[in-house]
């Protein structure tokens, strides 16, 4: 364990974050997009724990606790919204949902 430095953990978190971001930008299935968003959140929690451990303080860990809680609530509501959207439109493909166009 002594060899993995802070930078390594942060790098992993960063790459996971970027991967999630790519998924959000590229994928058209709303559910997959949502999962990628959650992946970004998870990556952020990883960074938080890494900082918490390396700075020898509990505050980051407690924040992760709250992040997980909020993420759970958010997923529940978001999925309910997607289901409602599916009922309205019959699809979860994002390129079919363009009512905000100019």
């Amino acid at each position: 364990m002594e060899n993995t430095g802070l930078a390594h953990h942060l790098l992993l978190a960063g790459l996971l974050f970027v991967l999630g971001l790519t998924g959000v930008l590229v994928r058209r299935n709303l559910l997959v997009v949502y999962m990628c968003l959650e992946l970004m959140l998870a990556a952020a929690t990883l960074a938080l724990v890494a900082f918490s451990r390396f700075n020898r303080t509990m505050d980051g860990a407690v924040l992760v606790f709250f992040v997980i809680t909020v993420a759970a609530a958010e997923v529940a509501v978001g999925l309910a919204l997607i289901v409602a959207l599916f009922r309205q439109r019959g699809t979860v493909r994002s390129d079919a949902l363009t009512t905000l166009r100019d």
Partner: protein
Amino acid sequence: MPSDLTSLVHWILFLPLGAAAFSALFLRRAGGFAAWFSTAAAFGIAGLSLCVLAQGADVRWHVELAKFGGVSLGFGYLLDAQARLMLFVVSFVAAWIHLFSVGYMQEDAARGRFFAGLSVFMFSILGIVVADNLLMTFVFWELVGFSSYMLIAHHFDKDFAAAASKKAFITNRVGDLGFILGIALCLSLYGTLDFAALKDHPAAKAIPVAVGALLMCGFLGKSAQFPLHVWLTDAMAGPTPVSALIHAATMVAAGVYFMARVSFLLAPEVLQFIAVSGAGMAALAGLCALAQTDIKKSLAYSTLAHLGIMGCALGLGHPELALMHMAMHAFFKATLFLGAGSVIHGCHHEQDMLRMGGLLKKMPLTAATFVAATLSNCAVPFLAGWYSKDAILEAAWHGGHGALFAFLSLAALATCLYSGRMLRLVFLGEANSEEAERAHESPWTMTLPLVVLGLVYSVAGGFLASTLLPAGSLQPIKPALDALGFHLAAPSTVVGLLSLVLGFLGALKFYGSVRGADALRVVSPRTYHLLEHRWMDGLYRWYLDAVQRRVAELVAFLDLLLINGVAGRWVGGGVPAVLGYLTGRSFHRGQARAYALWIVIGSLFLAWFLIAR
């Protein structure tokens, strides 16, 4: 006990406010009840004032509202002798005018609003009377202006009433600009706004001219002195009780009262200006009253003349004389206006004097009180007006101010002239119109105040003066009056008697010579036209059109060019237009992914900006 007195003053000040709030909230529709409610409040105030006066002691009370770095702003009462006199005058006259309004405004549908307005006015004027510092005076000063605005435009659907109220308010504001600059100057020079503190201030020995001059601006506006006198005649567009209460007895006198309060802040140059303009105004306005056919406008010019006389007294260095004349004037002028109101009401809202006539027989009580008040106005010896007016004339003579004495004498002559004219046209002779034919005496609610104010006070002024003397600041007057040689052989008495005989009787004869038209106009139309005094308004109009409008148009043009044009259209409009062209189509496809891409690009840029730079 001082604390009892203080709570009495609290009641006096806040009772009208409560009445106004109650009326405004609940009694808008119930006009009749509102009328009696407001009148009861007014009589309550008068009664409480008498209690305060009976004690004869000063009331001082103060509460600090805010403190800014050593400067304390507060709210308080300073009820010294001057204030007690003014309190008596205001509360007494107002109570009777309220009663008069009950009868006068009987057919008016918006009575509730009117009486609420009267109560607001009472609150405001009492605030000025009891105020103990400049800022509080100023706040209530503005409130009085607002009440006046509201009441003049009582019939707001009539164009000329709305225009008149605006004119009154704006003219007052011009004066108030000087007032507030004066307050600021006072604060910066002396660090306090309290009257008592200012009086005892060590630097009060050498007051700069600016302080008095600026504070005087407020007086010029409120008390309709030259050059801000143009609003008073137009203000007659309001209902007659309003004219009586506000524009004859109390509001316009508030300026005189204020000047008397701060007389120690007025430099000799300021006093000189006030004296000269006051005397000039007195003479001019008195003569102009001869060219008005509307009875209220004629009385308005008469008020202007008397205000000029009061100003002259102030300028001569006798604020106590000014206050005394103010008190006397309040009584007989209120009676005159109320009498005019009774006449107008009796002739079914006819206000043109040329269409009246012969009302002596038809409205005897009104006529009697009107005559009594007129005689007081003309300073018939031993009536109320005589004491104060002649004292002022004496002061001018003994001070060696020949020119001022001449102007004041001219004013006295003019007073008798227009008074005689008014009596002749309105009460004597034959009826000149249908309405005058069918005139009848007014109801008791209107005649009782006339009797009380007119017969009792105008006539019994001498008695009044002697009772007020020990209670008021008039204490110093008695020896001064004696010193002035106040006896029948004095020059002022000579002038007075001459004016009476020549002016009054002459006018009675002269104006009876032509029927249905103004005799002066028939005899000398050019003089008449000159006296109609339209040139002052014309002067203001020229200034507004020629000068002010040009400046305003220039500023508007610059604003359009610079702000709208350059900043607005080019910069504010150009940047988004350019950006929009570049990113236009792809920006708003409606696809969330595209938006997400832009978010990512933006945040990357931000991250680079924050971390790497």
